């Protein structure tokens, strides 16, 4: 054991009390925002409801905390100091998909992970948006020829914005997110179509050689994702 292991105790005689005092006496104008001042005496603004909603949506995006591969390191840097995605109203990573609106897909998707990613995507509440980060989510990137690599996130879930790069610089990701916000504010979203790789019940699949071979291993009700590699781009 090293000598640095003595327990350290906090000196609590110095704890600041100013904030507490201010709260107790009720002074301060915590409820008067700068925006409110800017509007002057009128407490109303006039706009279309949809437009307002889209603006709100784009201006407060909760990101899914979702790390896959190398790109997620740059994504962490984008969230953290220096680049600080929070400045663009899009910084709070949420660990649960049920609380998130935007999923940044940061990395290579392989056969074993695609069904899980699809499930996570399905768990996010509407309206939801996807930013594909890195070449891997566009085409499989450097691993495109791999026997196990999905040739792009778009094979599994719809993607609104693609940010190319390997990995994209944080600035590029910020730009991608800003572009997404612009699209949301304009009420645009990419159409949701059926993707080549969907989760299906095993029993519903057309019977062929591989289905027969696996029939003893997989239950009829199990969800499966079937990869037809020969048809991949």
């Amino acid at each position: 054991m090293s000598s640095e292991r003595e327990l350290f105790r906090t000196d609590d005689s110095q704890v600041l009390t100013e904030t507490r005092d201010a709260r107790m006496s009720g002074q301060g104008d915590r409820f008067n925002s700068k925006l409110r001042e800017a509007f002057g005496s009128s407490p109303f603004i006039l706009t279309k409801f949809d437009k307002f909603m889209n603006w709100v949506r784009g201006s407060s995006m909760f990101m899914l905390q979702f790390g896959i591969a190398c790109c997620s390191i740059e994504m962490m840097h984008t969230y953290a100091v220096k680049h600080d995605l929070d400045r663009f109203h899009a910084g709070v990573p949420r660990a649960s998909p049920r609380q998130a609106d935007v999923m940044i897909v940061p990395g290579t998707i392989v056969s074993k992970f695609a069904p899980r990613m699809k499930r996570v995507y399905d768990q996010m509440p509407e309206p939801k948006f996807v930013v594909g980060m890195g070449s891997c989510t566009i085409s499989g990137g450097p691993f495109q020829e791999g026997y196990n690599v999905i040739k792009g996130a778009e094979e599994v879930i719809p993607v609104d914005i693609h940010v190319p790069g390997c990995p994209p610089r944080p600035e590029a990701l910020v730009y991608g997110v800003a572009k997404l916000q612009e699209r949301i504010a304009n009420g645009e979203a990419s159409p949701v179509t059926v993707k080549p790789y969907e989760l299906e019940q095993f029993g519903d699949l057309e019977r062929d050689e591989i289905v027969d071979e696996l029939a003893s291993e997989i239950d009829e009700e199990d969800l499966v994702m079937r990869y037809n590699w020969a048809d991949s781009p």
Partner: protein
Amino acid sequence: MSLQEGDEATPEIESGETELEALLDDLIVDTDDHMNAPAFVIRPDTVQETLGRLKNEAGYDHLSLVTAEEYPDRYESIYHLKKFDDPTDEVSVVVPTDSENPVSESAEPVFRTADWHEREAYDLVGIEYDDHPDLRRILLPETWQGHPMGLDYDQDRPQMVPLREHANPLQDDHRSDTDSDTMFVNIGPHHPATHGVLHLETTLDGEQVVDVEPDIGYLHRNEEQMAQNGTYRHQIMPYPDRWDYISAGLLNEWAYARAAEDLADIEVPEYAQIIRTMGAELCRIAAHMLAVGTFALDIYGDFTAIFMYAIRDREKAQNILEDLTGQRLMFNYFRLGGVVWDLPEPREEFFEKVRTFVDELPDALEEYHDLITSNEILQMRTVGTGVLPEEVAKNYGATGPVARGSGIDYDLRRDDPYGYYDELDWEVPVEDGCDNFSRLLVRMREVEESAKIIEQCVDLLEDWPEDERNIQANVPRTLRPEDDKEIYRTVEGAKGELGVYIRADGTEKPARFKIRSPCFSNLQTLPEMSNGEYIPDMIAALGSLDIVLGEVDR
């Protein structure tokens, strides 16, 4: 030589090889010569006997890697053995099995670490291991058809992957029939505490972990296949950056560079070696910073102070690396025989920048010590939890900060010197607490040592005569190492012993390229550390292992 047999007739002068031959006399079928070590060919049913003798009587206590490959007429498993006391003392055991019925004896009873390595060999190449406790696929989904690193694999064949594990996250525990009070919980593959896409199948009894089983392969990107598809000279080098992508790019590139340079007999100029050493240590600092930051994130569960501090310091290191290599993360800076370009101009400014970074590090580390290591809460969570005794760590082939936190004085930079390390003055930090806290301390102290190394490199580079700045050796445009040359070389990556095995076949592409990932072996120790402990301790233990899934799954 730590030969323990009482045979006093073995004189010192006799070379290790003959001693080994004498030891394995009745088992050796044939000998082979790998470039790094003597290789003994044995019969598939004598694996345990051979490895047992080598481990217990000749002191080869480190099973570094199991390589499996298919030849047109046979399968082969190669066990690369080393000594923790002296990693330059290596021996390979080659086990050929016939192609019709590829069954070989498992080495798992002798070396625990063989468990996963052999599962991988089974999964990707298709060799079966007798007497293996749990032989199933490890990287690919269970329903996968065929063995992709075999010779006749058809990549266009459709595959089917079920989504089974998540059908019902709370299900009856099937593991123990006697005790029905346990609960089965999936942690991951999408979970903030698993550092990527790791899936932990955990069986709980109340708050305690009865059993945890890492399920990996969610980031299996076929790195070995990619390397086998690329030519030695230029096409392989970009991939190592993506094995351990926590900014450890240059350290990984060095693993490939070292193996390929030795294979093709290339001498790297001294000036380039110094640049490499400096760059690699900058990467180590960046990698350890993230390890410390995310470890604190796991313990405290906040995205605030420590994580941000760590990122702040990483940004500094990354800026320097960007000046040097042109990229923030995927450097692709090494070339066989040297590095791609010289230090950036103006050199003075660059040196100044590196100096400032190194000079500010002690203060930064002081902050970390204030925030982390001297913090009561963190101490309560980490001191004495996640205990990994020395012998267990060795048995699992743990290396890097994990081994050094368990009192194993093993660092390839010193013990198997490469680059410029043996000319410089630095130390190998070792802690013998064997717990989460020790591993954390080792990383923090390694950052200091790396800073020392960088400082000395800068001094050397500054005074280097201008007309001797040779950054690359003369390397032929196309490299075609001779047929049947085999080499296994390791370097000290950020996470531990990172190795590359290459078999050449006379063409410009490797016939077999195998990566020894330190994280793969380190992660295997997780059940040892956390079974019987509380869940938070398991999370802390996982954080202290500092795995990166890109390297675990490759």
